[in-house]
């Protein structure tokens, strides 16, 4: 468990310097290091053998949570601990705090970043499904100065795969200004406390003035194919009032339609059951938040 030879270590002070460092290597030969909670393991096991590591921890412009006209922007290097502690995050995006507060242990939350997690896109992780469930978009910059926004539905391609190109850096994860009466929640189930999710569920709902559900997004984590939307459940929640019965029906619809795997953490049947039991609790919390409770 010792890495292969790493020829260069770069510690840029700005995004421009980071991109310049990246440009000095062939695509794939240099990697960005965010919190290092996954990439360091991958290098130690030699799954990754980069020639150069570009450590982003000094890049101030990648840090922190900002808000503008109700929209929320999380710098790619924002740590889980900072997200979990940010009481100003609106009810629409509370799922971010739910998820960030239970990633790994305290040490991991003090180092790991939202940008690192979505860029790595591991199947058993909390952030990709949360960002997907919350309609997040990834803001990417390339060396030529161009930027582009990729919505989560297009960004997460499959396990350990994203739409980020090798010549791009992730600047931030952005969330649009939410409509009124919008709430979200995230929870996961693992065998031990705060473990990687065997099943993770993010639910975001918007209500009209009569508390009727007018928008619903549900995303799942822990599935072999990577994070994904649960459209059967979303459709089922629409027009409901988020009562116990409606939520149970929606979660049943997801459990019955989702393709899931059997592995050493849980077999397919039990994963379906976890989707039901975790999903009910998460959806109820999302509705409560949407109602301002």
């Amino acid at each position, binding site marked *: 468990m*010792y890495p292969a*030879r790493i020829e260069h270590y770069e510690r840029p002070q700005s995004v421009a310097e980071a991109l310049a460092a990246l440009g000095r290597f062939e695509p794939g030969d240099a990697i960005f290091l965010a919190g290092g909670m996954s990439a360091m393991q991958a290098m130690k096991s030699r799954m990754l053998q980069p020639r150069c590591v570009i450590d982003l921890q000094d890049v101030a412009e990648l840090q922190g949570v900002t808000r503008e006209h109700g929209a929320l922007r999380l710098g790619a290097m924002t740590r889980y601990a900072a997200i979990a502690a940010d009481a100003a995050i609106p009810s629409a995006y509370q799922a971010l705090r739910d998820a960030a507060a239970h990633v790994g242990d305290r040490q991991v939350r003090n180092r790991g970043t939202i940008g690192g997690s979505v860029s790595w896109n591991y199947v058993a992780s909390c952030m990709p499904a949360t960002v997907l469930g919350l309609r997040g978009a990834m803001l990417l910059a390339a060396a030529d100065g161009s930027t582009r926004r990729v919505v989560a539905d297009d960004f997460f391609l499959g396990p350990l795969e994203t739409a980020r190109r090798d010549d791009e850096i992730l600047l931030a994860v952005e969330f649009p200004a939410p409509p009124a009466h919008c709430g979200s929640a995230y929870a996961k189930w693992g065998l*031990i406390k705060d473990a*990687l999710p065997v099943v993770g569920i993010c639910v975001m709902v918007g209500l009209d003035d009569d508390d009727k559900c007018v928008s619903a997004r549900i995303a799942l984590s822990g599935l072999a194919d990577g994070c994904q939307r649960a459209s059967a459940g979303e459709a089922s929640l629409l027009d409901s009032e988020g009562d116990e019965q409606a939520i149970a029906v929606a979660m049943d619809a997801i459990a019955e339609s989702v393709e899931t795997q059997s592995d050493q953490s*849980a077999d397919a049947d*039990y994963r379906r059951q*976890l989707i039901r*039991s975790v999903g009910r609790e998460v959806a109820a919390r999302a509705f409560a938040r949407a109602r301002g409770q």
Partner: protein
Amino acid sequence: MSSVEKQAGDWLGARLTRKEDLRLVTGQGRYLADLVLPGMLHALFVRSEYAHARIKSIDASEALALPGVVAVYTGADIKDSVKPMPQSVVLPNLPARYPTFWPLATDKVKFHGEPVALIVARDKYVAEDAAELVYVDYEELPVILDPERALAADSPLVHEEDGSNEIFAMTLTGGETPEGQAENAAEVEKIFQAADVVVSERFRVHRTGITPMEPRGVLCDWNDADGLTAWITTQRPHIDRLALIDILDIPGEQVRVIAPRDQGGGFGVKAPFYRENIMIAYAARALKRPVRWVESRYESLMNVGQERDQINDLEIAASKDGKLLAVRNHGLADNGVGTTGVYWGFVMPFLGAVELPNAYTWERGDVRLRVATTNKASLTPSRAFGHFPTRFALERAIDMVAHRIGMEPAELRRRNLVPSLPYTSVTNEYYDSGDFLRVWDNLLERADLPAFRAEQAAARKQGRHLGIGFACGVELSGVASELLVPMENQPGYGAATVRLDPRGKVMVFGGDAPGGQGHETTTAQVVASLFGIDPKDVVVTTGDTGTTPFGAGSIGARAGSYFVSAVANACQELQDKITRILAHDLQIEASRQHFEFKDGEVVYLGDSSKRKTFRDIVERIIMHPINMPEGEVGGLEWTAFFEAAKPMICFNADCCIVEVDVDSGNFEIRRWVTSEDVGTLINPNIVDGQMHGAIVQGLSNAMFEEFVYDEQGQQLSADFEHYKLATAADVPDIEITYAPTPCPHTPLGTRGIGEGRPSSVPGALTNAVCDALAPFGVELTELPLRPDRVWRALQAARGERR
């Protein structure tokens, strides 16, 4: 020895903070990986990717050509210069099929992770680079993974020369002869035929064990004048020394083994003599340079700490009024490859079968065991050595008997506990002393069963499912020679040297090698209480075969039983000498019993003006040995041994309260209460810590930890993402209570504790879950106990109801 007990001062039973902790929590501990010698090389094992394959060829030429690589050894390179295992020092006196093997695989690999080659390089990075350049050409062979199929006549063989995958089989009841055993079995069968109630179930416990915080490591240094010095992460340096002498054929005076003072846990995992030790010593000798190997977590989870893994077909015959009559158990253990020095893979299940009958008065028992070899890592000792599965089976089955006859399981247990000791179990295990009923009644009082039943009934009306579960355990207090000689070919006695210093300080030397249990503190308290000095004036050295008396090692709860008893015996000899000379100096006719050692002084009880400070009399005897009594010489150092006439035990009982969510199968432990007979307490902090650690390990084994092999024998659980350990947030507060009985066979009444302690945990836990699910009639018989298993059992029970 009663005089010693009377002399025992305030330090015995004091809640001292541990002497070890300052250095450990301030980063000043020195572990094996902190040891560096000039010119030291780094070693890395290339390990098998296959569970079972023939080695056709190994090409290490590219690896050898890599700059920085000093040597690469394969099985073929060393086969003629290293003796194969088994060697007698690491061979139990039990009849078994002992496979022959070398430290590196020779003709074939037999489990995923087996060492195939050793790379020695200037640093560990180069060694890893070189490992990728060692090309092994394998021919895959059919893998043997299921212990039942392994025993079929047509099974492929793990060790072909043995002609069978049955490494060990034994009937533990009915005496030594087949006739006696058959006669006993027939008598047992008669009891079963006539019994009101028979419970007959198959109980399975998965492969799980212990993962010390610090994995293994070895640093060896060779020079032609002194020979070999080996620092090994080990619980038993003196045994490792003998093994290195015999296997590498080095003259005994040229081998010194040192277990580092600080070790990050052993729990049995560092008790065997491992093949890796041989190779590092071999390389250091061949290269005449220090060579160090530090095991990675990945290697550790691939190779060691794997235990349990038994199927027990257990039957109980009982009367309808709650008398347990007979127990019959046919055990089958999956030994894995079984190539671990001292224990192979079957010594653990052997002891597990011995300990099966537990604390109950069976009229008769029929206990048998078969152990199968498979293409997995060898079982290695893990705290609750061998009997985690058998105790789970028995304690679960007792609850099933209670359910059948409609009696409280706690009451059924109470009626059948051995009422007075000593007692010899149906498997011929000797229980020396204690008071099981007192421990049990203390538990019930603390648990308040009637209050719980009322709460449970009220909760059920609200659709909530609470449950209570009980279990108990007779555990070894040290391992007597009577058991250790046949089981491990080693002596059980404790040994300690106590050396007094002219400044009035005390140095204690022990040959055992602790891994964090607090020997330095408990030993200091014992010495301080006997000499009437402060524990801070006592230092303890362990683990160095060059400076300590021979000891069988830190195993089987030997500290509180054997080691401190040897220390006490040595102190008593020194007290005798001190008081003889002091009486002479004071010109009085007096001996040991006329003096008190207290508050740094030795005081004549007949006239308290006649006294001397401990330091002054010690300095006088060591430094000024003139005007001595006739026949006395100076100096104050004594090596003493301790061995009780018979094996000794300690006893504990657990109560667990859970709440189960019948929708998801999730369950939460709401309360954990214990009752312990640990004999005389030396340091309650340390004993509490032993109990906390043991119960957490038991829970973690029962609920989370599992070594998983796929159908090709690939180990899928070699990291902590997949091998899940309990965290602090996963375990309940633990209410430890004591109902101690001093052991009459040790000088201070102490008992050795903590080793077997996890074994009653899975029974108490699973009994509680089943009690919660009594309305559904769920009886769980397999571990791990996880929400998915509970959920599935509920689904099945509901299905049957429909």
